[in-house]
C-alpha cells in the first residue's frame, strides 16, 4: 500500500501545487510578517515607556525593511509557464514532506507522544518505504527501547497522553 495508489487524491494535490507559485508563497509570508510586526509596534505604544520604547525603536526600521523586500519581490514577474513533470514531481515531494510533519503533530496531539510517534513511524515506513513487517518491527522496536530508556527511565518525564489521555508509559 502506498500513497501513489490513491489517484484521485494525487490528482487533487497536483492541481493545488501546480497553481500555487513560489512568489505567492513568499508574498504571503512577507504579508504575515508585516502584520505581526505592525501589531507589535502598535501595541508597543500602549505599554509603559520602559516596556514599549525598545520594541518601537526596533520595529519601525524592521517594517521598512519588510516593505523594501516586499516591493522588491512584488515587482518580479510571476511564473506563467506550465510546470513540466519534473517540477511538478518536485513540488509533490515537497507537499508530502509538509504533510508528514503535520501528520506527526496531529498524531501526537491526538494519540499522545509515544503512541502518536509509533503510529507515525508505522505509517511512514509502510506507506513511503514499504518496509516489510519484520523490518518495521525492528525499527519501531529500537525506537521504543530508546524512548523508554532515555525519556521514561532516565528523565522520568510524564509523557503527553494526547486529547484522549492515552497512557504513554510502557511497563518495564
Amino acid at each position, binding site marked *: 500500500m502506498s500513497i501513489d495508489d490513491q489517484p484521485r487524491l494525487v490528482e487533487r494535490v497536483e492541481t493545488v501545487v501546480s497553481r500555487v507559485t*513560489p*512568489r505567492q*508563497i*513568499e508574498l504571503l*509570508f512577507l504579508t504575515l*510578517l508585516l502584520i*505581526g*510586526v505592525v501589531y*507589535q509596534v502598535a*501595541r*508597543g505604544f500602549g*505599554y*509603559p515607556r*520602559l*516596556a514599549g520604547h*525598545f*520594541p518601537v525603536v*526596533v*520595529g519601525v*526600521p*524592521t517594517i521598512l*525593511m*519588510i516593505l*523594501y*523586500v516586499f516591493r*522588491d519581490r512584488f515587482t518580479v514577474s510571476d511564473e506563467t509557464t506550465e510546470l513540466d513533470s519534473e517540477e511538478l514531481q*518536485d513540488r509533490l*515531494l*515537497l507537499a*508530502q*514532506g*509538509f504533510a*508528514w*510533519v*503535520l501528520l*506527526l*503533530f496531529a498524531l*501526537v*496531539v491526538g494519540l499522545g*507522544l509515544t503512541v502518536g*510517534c509509533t503510529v*507515525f*513511524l508505522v505509517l*511512514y*515506513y509502510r506507506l*513511503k*518505504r514499504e518496509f516489510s513487517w519484520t523490518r518495521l518491527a525492528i*525499527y519501531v522496536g529500537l*525506537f521504543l527501547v*530508546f*524512548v523508554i530508556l*532515555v*525519556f521514561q527511565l*532516565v*528523565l522520568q*518525564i*510524564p*509523557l*503527553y497522553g494526547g486529547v484522549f489521555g492515552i497512557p504513554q508509559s510502557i511497563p518495564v
Partner: protein
Amino acid sequence: MSSTLELLASALVILFSWPNIGFAIAGVIIGLVFGAIPGLGSVISLSLLIPLSFGMEPTAAMILFGTAMGGGKFGGSITAILMNTPGTAGNVVSTFEGYPLSKKGRSEEAIGISATASALGALFGLVILLLLIPVAETIILAFGAPENFWIALIGIVAVGILGEGDIAKSLMIGGVALMLSFIGYSGVAGVYRYGVGTQYLWDGIQLIPVIIGLFAITESIRLTREASTIDQSDTDDHSTVWDGVVQVFKHPIVFFRSATIGTLVGLIPGLGGLIASFISYFQAVQSSSNPDAFGSGVVEGFIATEAANDSMDGGALLPTVTFGIPGSPVMAVLLGGFLFHGLSPGLALLTDDLDVLLMLVLALALSNVVSSTIGLLLGGKLANITRVPVDSIIPLILAVSVFGVFALRNSILDVFVAVLFGLVGYVLVAFDYSRITLVLGLILGPLIESAFHQSLQASGGSYLIFFTRPVSVGIIIAMAVIIGVAYNKMGQQDISMDQDPMDTEEA
C-alpha cells in the same frame, strides 16, 4: 604558581583513581548521548546530574559535571555534521561546513576535524583559564552594559551581512527575530508583552523548539525532496577520520586564532558558544583568500567553529568561578551544582577550594579528550548514517526531535512551536532568508534590550555612554568595517547582475 601545580598534580592522581575514573566515563557517555539528541544537551544533562550527585564528594561531583559538559559539546557536533541537526544551540554553526562535508562524502573527515579541533580547543581554553585567573577581574569588568549592547548588535548585523542568504532579507529577518524576542515578561519593565491572552508566552518564545524546528524539521522536509542519501558524492573513495585530524594540524593559524576568539568570547557573560562560533567562523571567512567557497564544506571554516565552540568553556568558567556570573547557560546550571555542593564562587573557590576547581578543569579536559577519542574510533561507523537512504532516517529524526522538545518543559505547545518553525524554516531556506540570523536575534534580543536600559540607567539617560567608552568605540569601528564590507559586497552583486541581465534566480 608552584602550589597550583602541586594541586594540579594531586588532582590528576585523584581523577584517575577509582571510583572517580568511573564517574568520568559515565559523565562522558551521558554527555555524548544528551548532546547528540536535539533538544537535550549539557544543560539538561547537568540539571539531571546535580540532584543525582547528592551525597557525593564535591571533587567526584565536579568530575561528573565536567565530563558531561565536555561530552555534550562533541555529541552535538556529531548530529550537526551527519544530519544538519545541531544537538545543542552551540552547534548551529557546525552545520555550516560540517554538513556540506558530509554531503560530499567526507563525513568521517568532518568527524575527525571536529574531534581534534574540539579536544585541542578545549585544552587551549582551559590552559588560558589557568593563566588568566590572576587577571580575571580586570578583563571582566572592562565589559559593561554598553559593550554588551554593541557586541550583541554587531553579532546580528555581522551574521545578517556575512552569512547565508540575501543581505537585505537576512537583516530583515534579524529585525523580525528581535521583535519575536520581545514577546514575554519583561524583567526590565515588569510588563507581560504580546501575550495574546495566553500564559504560555510568559517566558517568551523558547529557543530550543525554534532551533529544532528550523534545523531538524526543516532539514527533514528538505531531505524528502532533495536527496536519496545525505552523502551525495559519486565516489566510494571517502576520506577518513585521520584525514580530519591531519587537517587541523595543517591549519594552525586558523586553529589558534579561533581558540583564542572562543576563549575571549567565553569570558563575556551571556554570550555563549553560539556567538563564539559565529565570530570565529566569520573571522575565518574574512581572512580567507576564497570567501565565496564558504558554505560548501570548507575545512578552515569548520576548524574555526569547532575550536571556538569548545575553547569557549575555558573562558566561560572564569566569570562563573570568579564572580558567580555564568558565562553561558551551561555555566549557569554548573553554578547551581557548585552551590548544591556548598562551594561558593569567588575568592574561596580560587583559594581554599582551588583543588575542587582544578578537578573540574581536569575533568573538562579529560572529557574532551575521551569523547574525541571515541569519535575518532567510531567515526567510520557513525559516518555510515550518511549513506543510509534518508527515507529511513527522516521519521526517526522527527520522532526524536518531538520527544526532545517535549522533554524541555513537558509542554505540547513547545512541540507546536517546533513544528511551526520547521515549516517556516523551509520557507526561509527556499527564499534565501537566513535561519541563523533568526536564531541569533532570538538569543540576543533580551541581552540587547537589557543592556540598552542598563546603560541608560547608569548614565542617567544620556546616550553618550554608548559612544564614549574605549571598548565600545572599538566595537563600533569593527561594526563599521563589517558594514563597509557588506556595502562593497552588495555593490559587487549589483555589478555582476548588471553584466549578466539574462541570468535569473530560482527560488
